[in-house]
């Protein structure tokens, strides 16, 4: 696998096109390269780890099925993020069409099964750490209260740190539209945060 890890995306895609389904190693190298980013987007969009894993698997299965037809008009990274975004939006719209599950216990159990670790920083006191966890939880809840497309653009820009140009390519819209959507989604987020997380607002 080490030699595959050194190849560019384009070279790995070519290898996949030549060797699938007999030799899956170049495909595996692509999965290894993108699995974390795709899972992170899915986790932010779906809001829970099991659902995020399901959607991440769907993304890579779609990539596997269609990689032979990929002609490289866009970068492979743009293509896979586009598949990830559309897969999550589809799944969310299906969820909204079926009766909503109210299963906090299941979500809690999943959280225990798939712990989302908070990156270590300069040794906060236990109180500071607890406060930070609560704040992050509140930010996450606020994100989940937004519309899917607002959450999506904030995930791509502010959480994943994507450039405007790449967001425009992934969403297939103009860069001006990306700038507007980011600004409006941030306003929507801040209004929701003020409603849901009042205790964290600065006191005037």
């Amino acid at each position, binding site marked *: 696998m080490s030699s595959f890890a050194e190849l560019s995306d384009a070279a790995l895609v070519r290898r996949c096109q030549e*060797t699938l389904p007999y*030799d899956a190693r170049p495909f595996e190298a692509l999965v290894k390269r993108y699995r974390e980013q795709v899972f992170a987007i899915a*986790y932010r969009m779906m809001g829970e780890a099991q659902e995020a894993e399901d959607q*991440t698997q769907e993304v890579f299965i779609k990539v596997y099925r269609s990689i032979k037809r990929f002609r490289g008009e866009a970068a492979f990274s743009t293509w896979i993020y586009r598949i990830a975004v559309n897969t999550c939006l589809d799944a969310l719209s299906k969820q909204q069409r079926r009766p909503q599950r109210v299963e906090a216990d299941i979500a809690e159990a999943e959280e225990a099964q798939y712990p989302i670790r908070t990156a270590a920083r300069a040794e906060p006191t236990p109180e500071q750490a607890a406060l930070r966890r609560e704040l992050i939880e509140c*930010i*996450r809840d606020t994100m989940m209260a937004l519309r899917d497309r607002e959450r999506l653009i904030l995930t791509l820009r502010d959480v994943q740190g994507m450039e405007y140009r790449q967001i425009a390519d992934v969403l297939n819209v103009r860069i001006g539209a990306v700038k507007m959507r980011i*600004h409006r989604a*941030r306003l929507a987020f801040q209004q929701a945060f003020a409603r849901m997380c009042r205790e964290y607002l600065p006191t005037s």
Partner: protein
Amino acid sequence: MAIIKNCKKIEPYFAPFVDGLLEEEETQLVQEHVEACPDCLARLALSRQARLLLLRLQEEDIVLPEGFQARLMQRIMTGDLATDVLDLSWQGLVTTLLQLLEVIFGMLLGPQPATAWQPA
């Protein structure tokens, strides 16, 4: 540059302003507008607060569930997916046959089999 008085025209500059991505001249346009427009000033402040809060999510280290890749490859290799990618046109079949022969000769002659699949 002339001052932009229309709020709708200045709005596309707000996200890159908050992100620190504007050129000096554009930054000045935004500043001049918000100095004269309290509504946009308030919106810009909200947008900046949102950005700062959202950046906190980057502190979270999202960990991919263990065994993800093995489960994925299992699904691909044991289902019908592996055959889904086969091209069944005659050109495709000829190419496939040639690739298969190459793999077989590779296995017979080379030290590393090209078909080996090991879960990551």
